[in-house]
């Protein structure tokens, strides 16, 4: 049975419920705590292995240790590497203050620090990709996640520019859209996603979203108290432009530094207005033709 989301024009209720799942498990998600990411890319590898995602370039990009550049049809976990001047206030400049709480990998002596972050599909509460999919290939699972049904997708590509995070892509070879499934197959048998399983530092944490949100609040408070004033949560609550994410992050700098949009808004939120204007403009076509003929009445004979 395929379950398609109701038109994503409203927020609020649990996404699985909104999609028509009468009974469903709690919403599951990821909390990616980038303050303990060591850039090992085990998540990238585990994801490829488990999901049989094809190789998509092992190039030297010149972007620190980043080989995969960004999320795409064939990169469902992407580790970003940022080499930057540590801010004066950031305890990353001082090994002691970072201590247990921070685990900062940057070299303190030269004032540089190294930020690493494993990016993934956000499994938005209001998912643009799912809203615009014309075939019903993208669906909301009972876990509240968003997956592509490959046997339904006709490769129209609409989901690709609809995603405010640039997550989903279309593969050249098979013509279909692909992205992270939050390991739907593993979730179904009570296992955690491959990336979270492989993560050696628990930077990637998997669990019921409510629990993760509490854990994240506690973690960011701890970091703040330890002097890491640059620690912040991203997409942690339901008040943002996507109704909150199923996969959210603890970051040490502004989102755009990691390649993430600072204030994403799903375009479907303004779709009612777009339909209104499209309707008015369509009526305008009729009016234009009418005007053209009214003025021409005398010219017929």
């Amino acid at each position, binding site marked *: 049975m395929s379950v398609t989301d109701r038109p994503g024009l409203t927020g609020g209720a649990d996404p699985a419920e909104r999609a028509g799942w009468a009974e469903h498990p709690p919403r599951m998600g990821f909390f990616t705590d980038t303050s303990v990411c060591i850039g090992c890319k085990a998540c990238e590898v585990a994801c490829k292995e488990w999901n049989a995602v094809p190789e998509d370039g092992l190039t030297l990009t010149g972007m620190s240790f980043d080989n995969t550049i960004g999320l795409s049809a064939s990169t469902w976990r992407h580790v970003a590497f940022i080499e930057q001047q540590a801010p004066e206030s950031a305890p990353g400049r001082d090994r002691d203050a970072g201590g247990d709480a921070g685990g900062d990998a940057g070299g303190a002596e030269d004032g540089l620090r190294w930020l690493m972050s494993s990016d993934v599909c956000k499994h938005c509460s209001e998912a643009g990709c799912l809203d615009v999919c014309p075939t019903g290939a993208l669906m909301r699972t009972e876990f509240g996640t968003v997956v592509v049904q490959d046997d339904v997708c006709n490769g129209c590509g609409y989901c690709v520019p609809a995603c405010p995070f640039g997550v989903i892509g279309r593969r050249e070879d098979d013509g279909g859209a692909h992205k992270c499934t939050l390991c739907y197959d593993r979730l179904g048998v009570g296992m955690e996603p491959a990336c979270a399983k492989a993560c050696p530092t628990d930077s990637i944490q998997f669990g019921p979203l409510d629990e993760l949100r509490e854990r994240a609040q506690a973690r960011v408070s701890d970091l703040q108290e330890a002097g890491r004033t640059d620690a912040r949560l991203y997409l942690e609550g339901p008040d943002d432009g996507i109704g909150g994410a199923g996969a959210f992050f603890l970051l040490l700098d502004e989102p755009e530094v990691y390649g993430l949009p600072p204030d994403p808004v799903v375009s479907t939120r*303004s779709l009612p207005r777009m339909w209104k204007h499209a309707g008015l403009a369509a009526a305008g076509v009729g009016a234009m033709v009418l005007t053209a003929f009214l003025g*021409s009445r005398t010219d017929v004979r």
Partner: protein
Amino acid sequence: MSASQPGTNPARGTNSGPAGSNGGRHARNGRGRGSGRGGEQFMVPRAEFRSYYGRPVIKEPVWKEPDVPAYLFFGGLAGASSVLGAAAQLTGRPGLARAGKVAALGGISVSTVALINDLGRPARFHHMLRVFKLSSPMSVGSWILSAYGPAAGAAALSDLTGILPAAGVAATAGAALLGPAVTTYTAALLCDTAVPAWHEAHREMPYVFAGSAASAAGGFGLLAAPAREAEPARRLAIIGAAVELTAKKLLERRLQGRAEPYQTGRAGALLRAGEILTGCGLAGAGLSRRSRAGSAASGLALLAASALTRFGIFEAGRISARYPEYTIVPQRERRTVLEAGTRTDADAAAVRTGRR
């Protein structure tokens, strides 16, 4: 923050990053990326944006050229031509009616073929009709097309062959009722994306498309209809061209600095060429009442202008997706306002909730 920080801001103040290679673009809103050399410290801070190695935040549309702009143009031509053709039939202008119906059939055929050809898996085009989703302009459009296409086809075939005239009338009426929707749903389709230039223009885009479609249909009428019946086509061409030009001006005025993708580079050149041709076609249509050749040339100019508009709008969207500042700068401003004012700023909050 220094422009020389590695990793955080390669798109600014250096000529080497991926975005730095994009020459010839203006500063946005009088700010945007500076024109400084690498490592230069600005005394007055420019509007900075930070990004991940100048990489795009969103994905550029995978839709191909010329498929998708052609789909937009021919769909618009078809939809407006159906209305023109039906009105011509109603007012006893069989030549203009036939021109409208033929343009509709030809236009919607090319449009549909272009759309299917652009699919990653064309053999599955019928999957579009598995579901109906108001939240997907492409789904709504597919259903409109699946009703409109056969109606437009039947109207034209009945007119050309003379068979089943009653069914032909019904099909003509049906196509005329659905035609306007065919011309404007594609505007909602483009604007319902995260592509900044498209999404931010969602208020004006349907009117640009409507005007562009009307001017193309009028232009085709001028080209194909007998001269004694062409007056309504001439007037439709003029009205449509005026609406298109006005809506585009309003778009640029409201977007101000954010209209840059529409004004620079290849997209800007396409749109400017379109505007010039629209202006020529508009004037030509008004002045060529006694000249068959002049009318035909004006009609051709308007058809070409309508196509150029669609190609230009398509390209502007791609550019605005390709360079991260178009995504990051407006969002950063909004986030800063919302964080500072705890959403006292109605404008920023309205964008987030979709009311703006």
